[in-house]
């Protein structure tokens, strides 16, 4: 083996890494799509909830300047993308961990970043899918008027908004054994969604619930999503971004600590 070849191995060209990442992403998305227990529940729950609360039970009321159907569209869009991130990353990574599959991947020359980014991108794709499906239902069945710019803003916010919840997923996968990962993820997902005002608009909740909502990343993302329709109930746009950023950093810190603990014990 000549030195030239070794140098080539040590610094694989960027294009090769990108193609590894793209293939990894494609197969990750495919495998999640084919895993019906994942795709049906992650896409199905927000769709069913939206059909119930946004379409069937909707009597044409308004919240502020926008229709209930449109208000709830924002909430369930956030509910859906959060689920995709939490379950796709948290449970998916925990499963790879538990089975020793991640060891095999780590032992291969796969760039670790390609693996993590592929998981994140799959979560983003699921987020986009859910948001688009809900928008379609809203427009066709709920008389929601959605401009293209509004839809584009929703998608852009989905891409960014998934990140804090990907970090929760990472922390969960590193802390929680696979056998209890789905249960614990639900224990975080559902209360966090409710307390963040994603199921029932915040103003209909008791006052103390409105106070603790400020601690929920779901609340901040929900408000930002409503902001894409030109509606905000409380707080400034900047305060919501700060809220999400703070939460993301907290989760990254927890994930880093958990990773260090795991490395020391391996």
């Amino acid at each position, binding site marked *: *083996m000549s030195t030239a070849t*070794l140098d*080539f*191995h*040590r610094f*694989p060209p960027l294009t*090769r890494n990108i*193609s*590894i990442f793209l*293939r*990894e992403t494609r*197969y990750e998305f*495919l*495998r999640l799509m*084919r*895993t019906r227990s994942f795709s049906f529940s992650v896409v199905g729950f927000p769709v069913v909830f939206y059909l119930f609360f946004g379409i069937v039970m909707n009597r044409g009321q308004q919240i502020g300047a926008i229709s209930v159907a449109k208000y709830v569209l924002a909430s369930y869009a956030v509910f859906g993308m959060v689920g995709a991130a939490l379950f796709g990353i948290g449970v998916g990574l925990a*499963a*790879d961990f*538990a*089975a*020793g*599959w991640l*060891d*095999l991947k*780590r*032992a*291969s*020359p*796969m760039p670790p970043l390609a693996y993590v980014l592929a998981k994140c991108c799959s979560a983003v794709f699921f987020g986009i899918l859910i948001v688009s499906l809900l928008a379609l239902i809203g427009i066709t069945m709920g008389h929601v008027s959605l401009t293209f710019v509004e839809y584009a803003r929703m998608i852009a916010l989905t891409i960014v908004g998934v990140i804090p919840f990907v970090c929760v997923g990472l922390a969960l996968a590193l802390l929680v054994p696979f056998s209890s990962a789905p249960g614990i993820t639900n224990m975080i997902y559902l209360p966090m969604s409710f307390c963040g005002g994603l199921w029932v608009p915040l103003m209909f909740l008791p006052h103390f619930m409105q106070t603790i909502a400020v601690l929920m990343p779901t609340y901040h993302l929900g408000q930002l999503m409503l902001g894409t329709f030109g509606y905000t109930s409380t707080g400034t746009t900047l305060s919501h971004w700060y809220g999400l950023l703070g939460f993301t950093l907290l989760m990254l810190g927890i994930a880093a600590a958990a990773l260090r603990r795991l490395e*020391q*014990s*391996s």
Partner: protein
Amino acid sequence: MSAVLELPQPDVVPIPCPSIEPVASLNHVTKRIPSGVVALDNLCLTLRRGEVVALLGPNGAGKSTAVKLLMGLSSPTSGTVNIFGADPRNHSARMRTGVMLQVGKAPEMLRVREHIELFRGYYPSPMAYADIIKVAGLDGIESRFFGQLSGGQKQRVLFALALAGDPDLIFLDEPTVGLDIKSRRGMWAQIELLASRGKTVLLTTHYLEEADSLAQHIVVIDRGRIVCEGTPAEVKSLGSVTRGALNSRSIKIIRCATTIPTHVLLNIPGVTSATVSGELTTILTTQAESTMREILALDPSLYSIDVQSPKLEDAFLALTGEHE
């Protein structure tokens, strides 16, 4: 050619036999896991180019730990690990290494073909797809989902993934577990073929037969220590490996009636196993002479002592019986 060899340059004459160039090594590696258990105890292991080495031992002997250290998946408590002259975590080392680990579950909703394509993509010059399918015997099941495969088929897919990068060094952790006799023989033939192409193979197994038929060098370990090592013939005749009494790696069985508790016996250098049945204590040791001196000093009232050279099967039954 002879003219070239006669050039008066004795200093730059290459290493005479390239086949003894070490490809991978564990140098005095001790691995203590957080619970305090010593998984590997001052283990030395050298893999040379084109060699098939078998790490033979019962469950829990430290075989998988050794493979994980060699793969850079965990780091030793003390000692060093070397792959192609570099740290095992080095990217260039990983490019030239393939591994088959004992994996509980792989992503089930990917097809066999997709799994292989994914792993081939990690390497700049992977083995041809058709060759992998042929070598691993995956013809006809390429389009199946991993989750639909039988245990033996899954095992063969994992073997295929180890070969995907056409690596020079291959680690196979219990490659034939769960395989029927026919598939096992098939995999043995493929491993032999790999070695004949100059690949270096380390396989772990608890089947003596497997180590015997594949490996040029067998290392028997138990509880993280080397019990004995050598060619299959040497290992089978255990006692005859002696290269002077002091550095002999040969194992002896000492039977005696003694009051020394087993945990004290296990701390004596060379002792790999100590069991009590009735009056008699059975001690397996790699350093019979020093162990004898030690136990006689510890227990002056010791009696009915008997020292034997065991057959490998005897040693194995004693070793494995301990854990099950």
